[in-house]
């Protein structure tokens, strides 16, 4: 393992993040506050509590997931797409590093940035609602796993994309709707039975449910299934990345 190279990629990627640290910090704070104003105040005045948790607090895990997932994907996708696009990837391809090490560097950095934003949102949320986290360790573990697995997913998108439109396509058209429909802002039990069934095909549901369990000890699906779902998703992404690595698909001609 070429750890120096992994660290070099990681550091280089993070330096882009630090150059725009204010932006990276301010925008999640503002958008979280807006969500609280809109969802918390408007809807919260009608829905008082969900299964014993105040509505404001109830949406916090979903809010964090929404940002963390979109950020992980876009950071990693952009991170690897950009050098491909401008051509600086030649250096990675000619360096004595494996594809796996390239993945670790980029995915690690993308996940770190998303994690940072997740934490910022959590802290911001604390100013609006009281949060007593039931399983803090599990919460952190879920957060980190989500960052990593969706950064892997974003990396695949970045390799696959041939232009900037494609880079936006999957996150915008598939991921964001799945997050919104995955129970970010409501409990599945609030839906009519038919929609409950449909929702169970949404993989994001298992993530948000598991994450919410870590916060409030309540879940739409059993925690074990949530864990299984995220493990499956991570495994799937790793498999695809392994295939890309074997074939040099869209990287080497």
């Amino acid at each position, binding site marked *: 393992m070429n750890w120096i190279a992994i660290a070099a990629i990681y550091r280089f990627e993070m330096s882009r993040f630090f150059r725009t640290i204010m932006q990276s910090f301010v925008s999640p704070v503002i958008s979280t506050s807006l969500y609280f104003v809109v969802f918390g105040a408007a809807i919260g005045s009608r829905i008082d509590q969900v299964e014993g948790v105040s509505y404001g607090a109830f949406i916090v895990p979903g809010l964090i997931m929404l940002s963390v997932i979109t950020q992980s994907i876009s950071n990693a996708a952009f991170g690897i797409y950009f050098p491909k696009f*401008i051509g600086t990837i*030649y250096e990675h391809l000619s360096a*004595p590093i494996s594809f796996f090490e390239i993945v670790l560097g980029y995915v690690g950095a993308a996940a770190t940035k998303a994690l940072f934003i997740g934490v910022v949102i959590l802290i911001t949320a604390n100013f609006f609602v009281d949060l007593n986290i039931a399983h803090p360790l599990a919460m952190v573990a879920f957060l980190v796993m989500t960052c990593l697995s969706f950064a892997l997913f974003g990396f695949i998108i970045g390799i696959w994309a041939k232009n900037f439109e494609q880079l936006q396509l999957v996150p915008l058209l598939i991921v964001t709707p799945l997050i919104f429909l995955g129970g970010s802002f409501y409990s599945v039990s609030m839906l009519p039975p038919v929609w409950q069934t449909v929702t169970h095909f949404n993989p994001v549901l298992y993530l948000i449910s598991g994450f919410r369990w870590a916060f409030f000890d309540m879940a739409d699906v059993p925690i074990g299934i949530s864990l299984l779902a995220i493990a499956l998703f991570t495994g799937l992404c790793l498999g695809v990345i392994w295939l890309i690595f074997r074939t040099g698909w869209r990287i080497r001609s």
Partner: protein
Amino acid sequence: MAAILSVKDLRKVYDGGFEALKGVSLDIEEGEILALLGPNGAGKTTLISAVCGLVTPSSGSVTVGGHDILRDYRAARSLIGLVPQEVVVEQFETVRNTVRLSRGLFGKPRNDALVEEILRKLSLWDKRDNQIKELSGGMKRRVLIAKALAHEPRVLFLDEPTAGVDVALRKDMWDIVAEMKADGVTIILTTHYIEEAEAIADRIGVITRGELLLVQEKAELMRQMGRKQLEVQLTAPIETLPASLADFGLEIGQGGETLIYSYDTHAERTGITKLLNAISDAGLTLRDVQTRQSSLEDIFVNLVEEDA
């Protein structure tokens, strides 16, 4: 001595079905400078890219320092530095950070003293903390060179390092190449400036349409392929060639004041004595005589034309 770079029957067919390399074989000795010449689209960049890992060879094998570039890619690539033909840089990053990244990617521990030395040598030290977008085109090319040098390669590929570079930097480049050669670094460069190959290369390879036409010692090539010209200046201009000189294939130049005779230095007899005798027999008097060796450029043009 074993070759530091050995290319055997290397073929590359691109996805569209275009065969850019048609079985190239080439051995390069440690410490030599090889210049690859060839018209646009000849396959120079493809050859370099295949060796450096940017392009997957369709067949054939390449070893660097005895390490196969596919099976033992870590060992092989850690010996190689590449300065690509296109100037590709991360515009928003600083010069120093980019150069540090290169060193890191090759698994070498951070070494600020070395980075400083390289940046100074390439006159980039003053710009070390500037974003790359603030540099001129020639400076950006130098950043690419700095990146390649930062990981201390033993084999350096320079793909048209002096395209779009001013005269001063071109000379600087040649000095850097000479310095690296003195340190035992092997250098493979491509260029369209033939005088550049003539000035710095030990050996010259000529590629056209995916095939290596020849690889030869520069001096040997010049000697073998070189034609010489004898230029005879007359005291009085002539209008037509005297009949006795008709068989020499002479050209008349400068309004009839010079006669130009081309001959092959390797021919059994050059025919010079006969020509000079015939000239004096024709009653012409000489003001001056000089010979001129054809340049590498002439040789190159001849080769490529012959092949076409």
